[in-house]
Structure formats: C-alpha cells, structure tokens
C-alpha cells in the first residue's frame, strides 16, 4: 500500500494556498454525501482567511490566504467540521426542475441514442425524465453541472468526433453522466434535448441556476412529439 492509498478522509496540501480533502479513491454515493455534509458545515462555520472552496464528487478543495490563516489552522477547522454521522446533518436539498424540449433540432442525437440502446425515442425520454439527479460537481465552464443518477441503461459513449458548436441549453449524455451546456461551446456529448432556461447569467444574481448538491429533475416540454 502506498501513501496515496492511506485511509480516508485524507488531507493533502496542494501548493501553498490550498488543501484537498478526499473521501474515497473512486466515485461513490457515500463519499458524495460526505462532501455535501462538509460543504454545508463549512458554510455555517466561517473561518477568517478562507477564500472559498470547491466541492467535487469525492473531494473538497479549500483555498486559503496563508497571510491570514495557517495551514494547520485550516486543517483543524475542516476536521472540526467533519462529522461521522452524515445522516444527522444532511439538510434537505434544493430541487430544481428543468424543462426540456427533447429530440428534433434541439436533440439531434436522440435517434442515435435510442438506436444504440434498442429503445424508442419516447422510451429514452421517459427514462431520462424519470431520474432524480444530483449535482455532483460543477466545472468545465461556468454553470456546468455534472449530474449523477443517470439510468444505467442510458449510458452512451461520447461522439466519435466532437461538435465544434453546441448551442447553449443543450442537454446531453456522455458515458454515465448527463448535463446541460450553460454556454455555447465545442463538445462531444450526445445531445438529446435543449432547455430555454438560463443556467448562467453574469449580469443578474443569482448568477447560477444550479449549485453543488442540488437535486435536478427534467420535465418534458408540452409540445414534444417523438416517434
């Protein structure tokens, strides 16, 4: 066993201004829940000198100003916020509903995804809207949420050749993940639909529709008409 495989949770400084706490080697629901609980506790226990932190699937990175807080102080603060019984403090998550126009020009890869799984397009949409998703992490671009909880039967590889232009609001599947592009960008996700809801608006607060830990449900738009 190497030092890298020591017991969890594991603390590691990342350079001179950050400390990373990791709850598991792999992506697990237990680790994700520990991240959410720690995130919540940190928010309710401020420490001077802590700049911000980035919750992820199985880890959380705290950024601090060493002129205001020592590394040992920051680690002690995180340790004090760790609780063994995560159920006891798990707050009720926010549920965000996203209305999606599936298929057609909004979801050009829906026929291919259906064919890949031997399902009809309607069956793909039913499985996609049945799920209750969790924002496991944000990143890649401002407002982009990595959603956990995709029906394993919808797991689909990325496009062999990424698109040079994916419109803002596109809803896609890549591997066992699903997500929404908040901005137009290049991308290789299989596009099954599109929402008109704005996920990121730098001019108006709240700037972001989704936050780490949120629950998400997709609602099919009324006028979806699929084979």
């Amino acid at each position, binding site marked *: 066993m*190497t*030092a*890298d*495989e020591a017991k969890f949770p594991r603390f*590691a*400084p*990342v*350079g*001179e*201004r*950050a400390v*990373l706490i*990791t709850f598991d*080697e*792999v*992506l697990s629901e237990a680790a994700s829940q520990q991240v959410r609980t720690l995130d919540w506790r940190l928010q309710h226990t401020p420490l001077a000198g802590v*700049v*911000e*932190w*980035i*919750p*992820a*699937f*199985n*880890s*959380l*990175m705290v*950024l601090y100003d*060493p*002129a205001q807080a020592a*590394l040992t102080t920051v680690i002690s603060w995180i340790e004090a916020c760790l609780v063994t019984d995560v159920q006891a403090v798990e707050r009720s998550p926010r549920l965000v509903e996203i209305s999606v126009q599936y298929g057609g020009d909004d979801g050009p890869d829906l026929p291919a995804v259906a064919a890949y799984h031997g399902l009809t397009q309607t069956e793909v949409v039913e499985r996609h809207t049945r799920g209750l998703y969790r924002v496991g*992490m*944000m*990143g*890649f*671009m*401002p*407002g*982009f949420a*990595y959603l956990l909880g995709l029906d394993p039967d919808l797991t689909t590889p990325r496009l062999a050749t990424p698109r040079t232009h994916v419109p803002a609001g596109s809803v896609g599947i890549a591997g066992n993940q699903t997500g929404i592009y908040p*901005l137009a960008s290049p991308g290789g996700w299989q596009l099954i639909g599109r929402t008109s809801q704005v996920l*990121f608006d*730098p*001019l108006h607060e709240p*700037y*972001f529709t989704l*936050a*780490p830990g949120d629950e998400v449900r997709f609602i099919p738009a009324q006028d979806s008409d699929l084979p």
Partner: protein
Amino acid sequence: MTLHIHQAALMMTVQDAGRTGYQRFGMPESGPMDGWAFRAANRLVGNAPGAACVEVGFSNAEFALEGNALLAVCGAGYRLWVNRRAIPLWMSFLGKNGDVIRLEKSGGGNWAYLAAAGGVQSEVWMGSRSAYPAAGLGRRLAEGDRLPLQPPSSDAFLLAGRSLPARLRPPYTSRPLIRVVPGPHAGRFQPVSWETFLAGSYAVSPQSDRMGYRLNGPSLAHQRGADLVSQGMVLGEIQVPGDGQPIVMMPDHPTTGGYACIAVVARADLPLLTQVEPGRGALRFTPLSVADAQAAWQQALVGLDSKALFQEDTWTGI
C-alpha cells in the same frame, strides 16, 4: 481621462486581482498572468494592490492618452516608448493629453502591465473587472476601444519618476529554476518520474494561453493511469495527462480537472514561468516546502509594500 487603443496586442485584456467566490460554480478566478509585475505597476502609481490594469501579451500595443495620467508599465518582453522617447519599465511617469504610448515586443518575456493612477474603469462583472471572454465577461481589447480611467488623486502626480529597485523585480530569465511544492498525487506516478521531472528541462509549447501552459520535455509515467475522479484545481498546479507532458494551470484554468498533479508552482516563481517565451528558453524544477513557498511570496510582498520603497532616480521626466 481615457486610454484610446490604437493597436491591440494578440492577447490583451483588462485584469484586476481576479474573481473570488464562484469557483464552486465552475467560474475561474482569472487575474494577472504575472501577479508580481501587476502588483508592482499598481504600487508605482499609488493604487491599491488589486486595481485593474491593462494586461498586454505576445505582441505590440499602442495607446493614445486623452487627458493627463500617472502611468507605469511593468513586466518582461517589452520596451516602452512615449512619443518615440524610450522610458524604462518599472517606473512611474506622467502621461499628458495626446501622448502616444507604445509597448513594443522586444527581448525575452510575454506579458506587461499598464497601470494608471486610480485604475482602469472597465465594467465590473460579478465583483471583478477581470475579463473572462470565454464566458462573455468582457472581451479581448481591440483597436478603437476606449478605456475610461479614474481621475487620480491630487497628490498622485508627486509619484512620477519613481522606479522600483532592481532587487524587487522578479529575476526573469529564459532558463529559470522554478520552485515547486510536491503535489498530492505522488503515488499516481512511477517512482522514477519525480527524478525525471526534477532532472529534466521543459520548453513552453506554443499551445499556451491564459488557461494553461503546455510544457514539452521528458515524459512522466503514471502508475494506475493518469485519470482521477475530477477534483478542484489551483493556480500553478502542474497536471500530467496520459501523454506524460505537463500542463501548468494559469489564471483562466478550469476550476476542476481529472489528471494527476505532480507539483504546484510556488506563487513567487509563477511570474518567472509565465514570462518564458513559447518555443524559446527552458524550465527546470526544484522542490520546496509549503512553508517556504508561503514565506517566499510574503517576502516579495513585504518588499513591495515597504514604505521606504523607492530609490532616488536621476531620470527627470518626459
């Protein structure tokens, strides 16, 4: 008071100290590539350390000044001309209405900062003036743009003609020895990779920008694969993807990523790294503890913030 852009450099944006508090939503910090030159330029014109400057990168830029202003240019790889008269970098000077200020790419280095007393008054996005064009927060500056300047305080002009002592300027070189804090994923690399990393010499790839600098040099081998479950990333983090060639995270870097991190560049040495020209020069790395990295940056700041900072200078003005 306005800076009228006659010629825009290849990479030219307004940058302040950066945008904090939104990395959990995937919004990068942004901020200056060379945090030391940026801070020094602001210091020279009497600004707060994080006031907005124009960041000029990789090619020539020219401005016309409308109104009077106290200005300073700091950085590397540029020469400064005011109405065809050469003015040293790392020095404050009085710019007058109609002056033509030219930053000419010359010698080793990539980035320079034009600071004006009172700061550049560009639009504020989410609490910061730092441009992040990838998400529509401001854009690269272009010919014809006009940047409003805040009127300087009445005594700001007394600061004209001050220069930063040479000992407080970063020791820029095309072949810097960069101090790094060992990364959190040591166990994800072959044991020999750390020695390879420290013994090797790395060039900066032309595929480098405000998001990251790609390095070319001895390949670093992983064990158990290059990919991790994605996690937060920091400025200066050196990630190693499957091809074994390191990438250094710069201010516009994505907030999360999934490659193993071999080391993190000390903040005090990041300016040296960012100024190494793509395709020229070479980097070498040497390890440093967290505490020593923190001390190195604090030492730089103590010097810059010192009251008895400026040396007498024989230069007498424009």
